[in-house]
């Protein structure tokens, strides 16, 4: 189910974050990010060669320009966070980033007219409350 998938993906994100931060301590954020993208590109090249996925550039013709923003934002976020996060307490950066993420998520869903059933809203509120409690009342550190 896609809820479970998202949770597992969250775990993967954390592991990646830990790996990245450990590596950045040794060789810096830019080098680490570069290696990160190189290895992902190698994996994708491998998948294309072994026909697991196929790349068809012609699909790009009918794709609106704004769809490509994600790729740019990805690299931007990694670099920007390496500047911003060290400049404030983990606690503060976590709650501010959390606010930005959740508020934007809701705005996006509202803008695209996502259908919220009662239980989805209830679940969302409970989970957000849990996240907030953790950020506000946990000790001042983040993995």
């Amino acid at each position, binding site marked *: 189910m896609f809820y479970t998938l998202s949770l597992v993906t969250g775990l993967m994100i954390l592991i990646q974050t830990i790996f990245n931060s450990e590596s950045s301590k040794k060789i810096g954020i830019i080098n680490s990010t570069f290696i990160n993208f190189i290895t992902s590109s190698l994996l994708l090249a491998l998948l294309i060669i072994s026909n697991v996925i196929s790349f068809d550039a012609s699909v790009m013709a009918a794709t609106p320009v704004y769809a490509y923003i994600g790729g740019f934002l990805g690299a931007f976020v990694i670099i*920007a966070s390496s500047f911003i996060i060290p400049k404030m307490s983990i606690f503060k950066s976590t709650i501010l980033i959390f606010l930005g993420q959740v508020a934007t998520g809701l705005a996006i869903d509202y803008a695209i007219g996502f259908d919220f059933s009662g239980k989805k809203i209830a679940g969302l509120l409970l989970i957000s409350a849990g996240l907030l409690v953790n950020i506000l009342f946990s000790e001042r550190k983040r993995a």
Partner: protein
Amino acid sequence: MLNLWAVLLGSSVSFLIFFNGVLSKYTGEGNSLVIIHFIGLAVIGLIYLLKKERFRGLASVPPYFFTSGIIGVGVIFFENLAIKQIGASITIVLLMSGQLFASIIIDAFGLFGRKVYKLTLAKTISLALMLSGITVLYL
């Protein structure tokens, strides 16, 4: 001002997940992964050149780090699948929950050679809230 940048950072994360989902809707899963990573590689490559970084000390990098790119592909792939099905807010909140669950466990047992942070009452309450919220979603 710095606070605003932090909020914008969080905002950018949500936008990037959303737009990647849009791209995968137009171009399909495989194509979107290739495009997203190619753009990312180009951007970081540019920064690499501009900042004249050097590939120094590669030997000191722990070997497990080289799997992070593989993990990254999986992350984007699953994010694209999820956001198209369950929308932005729920995907984002669940992604954060997954990270939080993992970090609480990693902290509690001191995994990855890190310091142990015992389970506190606050963490337990937050876990209970999150688990109940997730249960409600599954109902």
